[in-house]
């Protein structure tokens, strides 16, 4: 599903943020991406969300090499991705409900079962209920706090039942309760077949929800398997 080969990324010809990164992931896989500030976590996730192209190397998603993909195939790939950017990027004038509706209206993945299509209102309400946002449903996104906006961004990504969920520090502005509610939703999506790439600083999450882990150091991605007794620390 995800194949990164010798992927490097630098901005304006400066030092490489990512250097010869190799990564292979299949459907339903889960990967934490951890590393210090400026280690390149967000850059890696932007590549996976098709927001940016690599400086060198190739990124393949769902069997398509993104450097040579047609515009229609790229659209289909993007419709299969749920992306939670670090800066959330909600549309401030639209309500919470409309921000989520927009996401699902622009397409969903094949994992989005036919029976739930056309039942968006109920699904959105359920999602908002679980994330403690039902009372804010009709509020404009600009009126939300940082934590609330982050949860809406997650709801917006999960509502389309993505084949690939790319989440950049989705719990960064949450308290403990919401952190685990969010992780619960992400794990459910993962169990339903979504591949998950999650960047986080939160060691507690990594320790309690044990999954494969990638550590970014000096632009290199070192993969560890938490099941093998490794610590996944940086």
């Amino acid at each position: 599903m995800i194949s990164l080969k010798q992927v490097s990324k630098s901005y304006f010809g400066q030092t490489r943020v990512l250097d010869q990164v190799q990564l292979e992931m299949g459907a339903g896989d889960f990967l934490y991406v951890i590393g210090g500030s400026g280690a390149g976590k967000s850059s890696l996730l932007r590549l996976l969300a098709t927001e940016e192209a690599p400086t060198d190397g190739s990124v393949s998603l769902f069997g398509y090499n993104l450097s040579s993909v047609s515009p229609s195939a790229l659209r289909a790939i993007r419709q299969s991705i749920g992306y939670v950017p670090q800066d959330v990027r909600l549309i401030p004038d639209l309500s919470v409900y409309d921000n989520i509706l927009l996401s699902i209206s622009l397409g969903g993945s094949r994992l989005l079962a036919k029976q739930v299509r056309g039942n968006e209102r109920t699904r959105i309400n359920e999602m908002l209920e679980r994330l403690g946002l039902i009372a804010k449903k009709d509020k404009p996104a600009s009126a939300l706090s940082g934590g609330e906006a982050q949860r809406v961004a997650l709801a917006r990504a999960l509502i389309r039942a993505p084949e690939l969920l790319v989440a950049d520090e989705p719990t960064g502005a949450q308290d403990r309760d919401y952190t685990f509610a969010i992780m619960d939703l992400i794990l459910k999506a993962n169990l339903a077949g979504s591949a998950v790439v999650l960047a986080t600083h939160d060691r507690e999450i990594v320790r309690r929800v044990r999954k494969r882990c990638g550590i970014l150091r000096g632009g290199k991605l070192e993969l560890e398997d938490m099941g093998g007794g490794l610590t996944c620390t940086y």
Partner: protein
Amino acid sequence: MYVLKLSLRPWRRSPYSQAFTSIAVGVLLFLASFLFWMQWGLAPVIDRLQHEQVITAYLDPSADAATESQIVDTIRTELGAHAEVEMVKPEKFIEHLKGDYPDLSRELEDLGPELSTVVPRYVSVSGILPDSSLGYVRALQGVQAAESSTDRFQSVIGAFRALKWVAGLLTLGLGLALVTGLIHLGRTNAYLQQDAFAWMKLMGAGRNELRVPSLLSGLIVGLIGGVLASLVWISAGEWMANHIRALSPVLRYMTGLQPAHASFLVAFGVLFGALSGVAATPSRNGARIGRNRF
């Protein structure tokens, strides 16, 4: 519903730009339509001036009263549908003169019985006449000579043609200004919506999905402009048209301005607005994603 909300975002983010552009669209649309009416309405005036002529048929001095009547009846029968036919006797001719040349008319009246030999009798035929009319009148028995005033309005026709041409050019210019203004607004709106379009594109929106909010934004501005223009057309258009027609007797032949055409202004406003929204192409203006994008 979110599409409509997206298309109304520019009204929230820059309400004055949208409002002033709507008013400008209304004014330009009304002026362009009014000039178009002028251009269109002048056609029958020019046509009339081009084809209207006055034929003066001088009668033979020996023609008696019966012949006079016969000539008038023949002309009326042949050209009556198109023409005004009038028998002008010396007395009537002097009546016509009295207003402008009172001394001359008095001298002619003093001629007494010799008046009929000095002042000719003639039949005046005026109106939009076929080209063959002059030849026909000349050939009538009892007509000594006949002349036509064809081309007497050439200079006026030239002036009206110039006015028509300028009105057409101004209509075109105003139309261009209207479309340019709307496209410029569309591009500004696409820039204002850059965040939303960029995100939508990243979520897999196609070109059409990105265009719909822009199309609706343009359509809303065009609709408001069209409604404003149509209100002015209904309330002041006829008054302005009558004012122009009253400036010269010739202009009374201009085609009337129809208040019912106001609906066309609304339709044109909507059409121009929607097309300019599409032409603003948000896929190029507002949806650039990241550095070194795919």
